[in-house]
């Protein structure tokens, strides 16, 4: 898994966001951290793309790279057909109004010394939209949308609210400029189950009402399933599997997707709530999970091979390329579950030469 390729991309004209061969690297002394390595995906208007993976897999970096925070090392980010990576600072600033982001920790993402009213109207102040009265009106309307009462809330400061309420304020604030795309970076990971349900419902509701497109980043497969139309599974800076959420959960084909599903069954959150419908999910898959390999010196070939129970010689020699194994179900694996092995793996098996090209 953890492969490259662009087979999963759809019609460029219809996509709101299209990411091509995105690479983000950070310097680490004399070496480089390969945070995101050749990732491609697209999101259609009104769609929710879920990005799932463990800590350190590059999912947040991918989300931030959409906003050019920081600018990717290479690759393209097309938003409404325009390549954001080629824009000047000022042009990018103009574009950021259409893309908003909601972070994991809502308390620290709200400036602690401002009142909620100040925080809410700030985007409108910056863009000089409307009169001060109109700005407050808009803030009031948006807070009402997220079930907060403007009169009781507006003069308070973030520390006076619970995490769930702060997340509501963050959502209301993200909506102030009428964005087209919202990147949700683990928006419910810090919340209790009951509050999590409230926020997930709210996001769904807002999405429907404002025709939003969402990129939803999370490590929790059950949460992602709830909100997503399409799901991308990431491992160590690469995409493993991209599919419609129904197909992905019904037939997880990448060994890593399967291991993740198993983990959420046995551990927190998703538990007590029926086994995944996918075939042959076993506890064994989880036991093979060790620490993440280093993203400074990632494994050759498939980056998942060091943890993969199905890995063979070809996995070390050749990086698997994204291919369609079922309609609209793409996987980057030489030996996917429930689908024929890749052509490269067949070729090397018959030649007995892992390095044959």
């Amino acid at each position, binding site marked *: 898994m953890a492969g490259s390729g662009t087979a999963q991309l759809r019609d460029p004209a219809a996509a709101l966001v299209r990411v091509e061969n995105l690479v983000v690297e950070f310097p680490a002394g004399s070496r480089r951290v390969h945070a995101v390595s050749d990732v491609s995906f697209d999101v259609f208007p009104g769609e929710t793309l879920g990005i799932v993976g*463990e800590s350190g897999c590059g999912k947040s970096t991918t989300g931030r790279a959409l906003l050019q925070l920081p600018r990717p090392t290479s690759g393209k980010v097309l938003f409404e057909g325009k390549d954001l990576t080629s824009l000047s600072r000022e042009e990018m600033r103009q574009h950021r109004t259409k893309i908003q982001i909601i972070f994991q920790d809502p308390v620290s993402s709200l400036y602690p010394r401002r009142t909620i009213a100040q925080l809410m109207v700030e985007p409108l102040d910056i863009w000089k939209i409307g009169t001060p009265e109109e700005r407050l009106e808009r803030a009031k309307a948006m807070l009402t949308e997220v079930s907060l009462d403007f009169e009781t809330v507006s003069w308070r400061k973030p520390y006076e609210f619970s995490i769930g309420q702060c997340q509501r304020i963050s959502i209301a604030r993200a909506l102030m400029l009428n964005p087209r795309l919202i990147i949700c970076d683990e928006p419910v990971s810090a919340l209790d189950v*009951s509050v999590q349900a409230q926020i997930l419902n709210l996001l769904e509701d807002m999405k429907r009402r404002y025709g939003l497109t969402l990129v939803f980043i999370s490590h929790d497969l*059950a949460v992602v399933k709830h909100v997503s139309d399409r799901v991308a599974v990431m491992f160590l800076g690469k995409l493993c599997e991209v599919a419609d959420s129904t197909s992905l959960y019904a037939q997880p084909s990448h060994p890593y997707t399967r291991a993740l599903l198993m983990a959420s069954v046995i*551990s927190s959150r998703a538990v*007590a709530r029926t086994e995944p419908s996918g075939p042959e999910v076993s506890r064994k898959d989880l036991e093979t999970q060790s620490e993440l390999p280093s993203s400074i010196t990632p494994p050759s070939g498939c980056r998942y091979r060091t943890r993969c129970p199905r890995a063979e010689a070809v996995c070390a020699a050749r990086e698997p390329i994204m291919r369609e194994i079922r309609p609209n179900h793409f996987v980057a694996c030489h030996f996917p579950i429930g689908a024929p092995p890749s052509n490269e793996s067949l070729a090397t098996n018959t030649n007995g030469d892992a390095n044959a090209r």
Partner: protein
Amino acid sequence: MSPKRHFVDVEDVDERPLLQVDSLVTHFQTSHGVVRSVDGVSFTLNRGQTLGIVGESGSGKTVLSRSVMGLLPPNNVIREGTVMFAGIDLARVSHQELRGIWGAQIAMVFQDPVTALNPVVRVGRQITESLRFHLGMSRSDAKETAVALLRSVGIPEPEERLRWYPYQFSGGMCQRIVIAIALSCGPKLLLADEPTTGLDVTVAAQILDLLSRLQQERYMSMILVTHDLGVVTGRADVVAVMYAGKIVEIGPTETLFGDMKMPYTEALFKSAPRLADASHSMLPSIPGNPPNPARLPPGCRFAERCPYAQPRCRSEEPALRPASAPGHLFACWYPVGTPEGAEALKRNRALGTPAAAGLGA
């Protein structure tokens, strides 16, 4: 969880429960008034058993586990009730005596493993410290034991890792080290307070499996505190659901999940997303927030958010009463799955109470 019976150490067999908490009260005096964090909690825990304590943030579950251990601030605390641990009342003993119990008899695993460890001390010394203090081990014996402990919690190359500092480990690995420290003196009771919150799913699953395995091997009792019902299923023998400082339902795990009586347990259970649910389905959420523990309402504390609530719930507080299955207690006037409950829900639906609408079918 019967297989753990095989690990009984004959000398350790004692018919009496290991921990008996009776009408435990922990109130804090603050400038906002008296905060009733734990307000009359009773339970018993037998040797080798696991008790799961489930509740939302602010339900008092962490204060409860700290009260059991005696880890409370010295001032402005009102404590009542008894905590009998192996024949000693922990609520009455001196700080000096507690020092001999902490770590040796009762150990704790905290939520955030990275801050639970001292950042400027090598992990080796953090593990050997309690071995040398409580068990009086020599430096070399303690080191040997520490290596064995690290190996038992699944840390590779333990000899090498003893010289590492906490920042060199990932969150999951730090939690393993915290568990190793907690287990170092062979405690009879382990308190795990949200041991997997903040960890990734794959790592969380490993940590929970590790805790269950070690608990069975050592015939240890465990209190597993969490906000997630999923964590306690299949791991706890008994589950207690806490709300606003009280236990509102307690029972053997299967009974509790199979036949939940308290509307709060039901709501908590339903609000968790499931892998089996279709995409974009609405989650039944619990409306509103838990009550302010300094200004608790009269009557049932959950009434404000309860889909079943009737006028009686807002004036009269229900006490814990037994359900049909042995050991299953709940505090509710209109329990789930009874004719009264069904009728109450129907009445609220007809009235269009927001809480009733939110629960779904």
